[in-house]
């Protein structure tokens, strides 16, 4: 479960990026996070990944108080999360297999375990035959699928995605978001930040809308 309780984030000398955010996403749920550029979507995900510290309030993830989590415990916490970025963040000098394997190497798995899990993850995202290719020879959609394979290869409890379809056309966006939905069907909690309104309408998932750092919940929208 992801729970933001009156979470505020501000940077010294700058305006508040997030104000008194309250968000509840139950275990195994999938939701979309929408809002215009600069609304605070990426910051909210960064707080979840503990790339940024909460300025005020409490952030709980599966019973862990992320807002007060000690630095020593952050790597282990991050290994329970999968994350996909708009710019993929792939290592361009390493092949597809090595990019995906990094998550498992960090987790301390052996070579044999890594082999089988990476193959399975690549099959899942439809890149089973591209393991030896360098990212540079892949299309944008394929690169994003490598990013997704890297995010799901360790079967995380939570999957986060920051504008994963930002650079893709509509049909590729549909493919990518369907991959997230597949993963959600296997029990993961999924939160996807997107500004693609057509996909929001198509998926029919709960939507958290951020506007100038304030969150509008699905309940508020219903009201």
């Amino acid at each position, binding site marked *: 479960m992801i729970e933001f309780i009156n979470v505020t984030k501000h940077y010294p000398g700058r305006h508040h990026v997030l104000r008194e955010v309250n968000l509840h996403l139950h275990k195994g749920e999938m939701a979309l996070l929408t809002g215009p550029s600069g609304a605070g979507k990426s910051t909210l995900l960064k707080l979840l990944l503990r790339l940024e510290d909460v300025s005020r309030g409490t952030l709980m993830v599966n019973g862990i108080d992320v807002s007060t989590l000690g630095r020593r415990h952050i790597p282990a916490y991050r290994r329970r*999360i999968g994350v996909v970025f708009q710019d993929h963040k792939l290592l361009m000098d390493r092949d597809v297999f090595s990019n995906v394997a990094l998550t498992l190497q960090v987790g301390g798995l052996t070579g044999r375990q890594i082999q089988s899990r990476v193959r399975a993850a690549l099959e899942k995202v439809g890149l089973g035959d591209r393991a030896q290719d360098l990212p540079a020879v892949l299309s944008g959609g394929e690169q994003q699928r490598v990013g997704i394979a890297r995010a799901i290869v360790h079967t995380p409890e939570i999957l986060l995605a920051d504008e994963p379809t930002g650079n893709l056309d509509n049909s590729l966006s549909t493919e990518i978001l369907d991959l997230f939905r597949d993963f959600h069907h296997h029990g993961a909690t999924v939160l996807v930040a997107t500004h693609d309104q057509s996909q929001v309408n198509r998926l029919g998932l709960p939507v958290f809308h951020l506007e100038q750092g304030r969150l509008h919940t699905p309940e508020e929208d219903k009201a």
Partner: protein
Amino acid sequence: MNLHIRLEAAKNALNTLIKQPVATLMTVLALAIVLALPVGLFAALNNLQQLLGHWRDQAQISLFLHQGASAAEVQNLQALLERSTGVVSVRYVGKEAALTEFEHHAGMTAAIQTLGENPLPASFVVELNPLAQSPSALQTLVASWGQQPGVASAQSDLRWVARLQAILALGKRAVWILAGLLAVGAILVMGNTIRLHISQRRDEIDVASLVGATRAFIRRPFLYQGLFQGAVAGMIAWIIVAITVTVLQGPVERLAELYGTRFHLLGLNSGQGLILVAASALLGWLGSRLAVGRHLDHTFS
């Protein structure tokens, strides 16, 4: 910690070094030269000590005996001298032998004959290793011999021993200071090299951190890089010193022959060489640790 993770990090480090052979070679050679200088000076000091050991007969003490010293006193004194620290040899020179030696060296046969009887006392000639004890300890030792029953006087000149030991102590201290400075230099060279490697792999570090890599996981390949480069640099420094000793061997032997002695230059023995390699690997590791630690403080802050 699983062994396979360490092996993977070591493999990763080796691959990185092999992929950039020129940069790796330049770093290793720079480190090797930095290390070879103090190690070469240590070897030179060792050779100097060895050379001085050859001149130990210059630290000679003469103990002149009373004319009436008894045979027991002479025997006891000889036993005492032979078991004293730093004594290389003890030679008894009887009255007759002293006279013969005196006549032979001084050519004063006629003058001695006019005295009618042999005026020279019996003596012990003691050869000391000048480096076995401190000058003050040697002084004390010789003074105590002078107090022994049957000894009339002790004659020695240990000032040169004090000077020699002071020069060697100065040399050692200077080499240690130089070695310390160059060790800092080696750490900085390695730190700078690793800093460049870190900046080349910044994306990888950032992604690894995002997917939950610990500081240790990120740091390990860089530490191995420093360790490997340091160890190889130590081996090359060892080779440089060995080649230098080999090249100087001939001229040194010819010079020694001109002084009527034989001298063989010593390089590093295998124990010293292994210490050099280990110390060099440690310096490489330390340099890496400093560089990567600073970077990770920034990444994880």
